[in-house]
């Protein structure tokens, strides 16, 4: 385990913007795809 605390985890050693900017947009893409598939069912 590399993290001292929750805020340490979110800070990602100063790379928070880049790490979470990547993960959040990927998650958003997946959600959009799934919503689109459900909508057109």
């Amino acid at each position: 385990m590399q993290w001292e605390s929750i805020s340490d985890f979110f800070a990602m050693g100063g790379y928070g913007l880049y790490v979470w900017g990547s993960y959040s947009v990927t998650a958003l893409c997946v959600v959009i795809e799934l919503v689109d598939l459900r909508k057109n069912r």
Partner: protein
Amino acid sequence: MATFFFLVAAILTVWGLYIGFFVAPTDFQQGESYRIIFIHVPAAWMSMLIYLVMSFWAAIGLIMNTRLSSMMAHALAPTGALMTFVALWTGAFWGRPTWGAWWVWDARLTSELILLFLYIGYMALRASIEDPRRGDRASAILALVGVVNVPIIYFSVQWWNTLHQGASVSLTKSPTMATSMLTGMLVMALAFWMYSIAVSLMRVRRIIRDREGNATWLSESSGVQ
């Protein structure tokens, strides 16, 4: 069937992210920014693999004149485009802190961008032709012409002097990264793979229903509603 693949994908994602964020150590050169690779590399692999599978089904549809093959190719394209976009986006968010630039016109990045345009072009062509069978054939030809781009992406880091680093994982030599990093990446790659199968199955079911909705075999089968 799709539900099963979704379930496997979800379990693998939780497992892969656990390894990626809690087991894998900090990279001694890149710090924590390297943790983007747990989605970047799987997305990039899937973007190429899906294109190959899509072209395979498009070719079968073209040669054998089988409708279902063309529908399968059609169903794969949006997910392939999504994976390509994710690979480019996460690459930009990794490149900014590591290279100091969101984007460079490097051979790897440019050929991956061309892949995104191929997917978009394929879907646009497919959608612009009203007769589905003609649309199948025209878009299949586009997919097959574009397939030459896949080896270009894959080998770009060897053929040209790219800013993008060479492969850390390959079939011919042992990986040049910590085992836990590699495990996390492979588990995530498997998760993305299962996810792609799940959404493609869901989408092909919808396409079959839309295109073959008045067929007798469909109303008799219980699998598709």
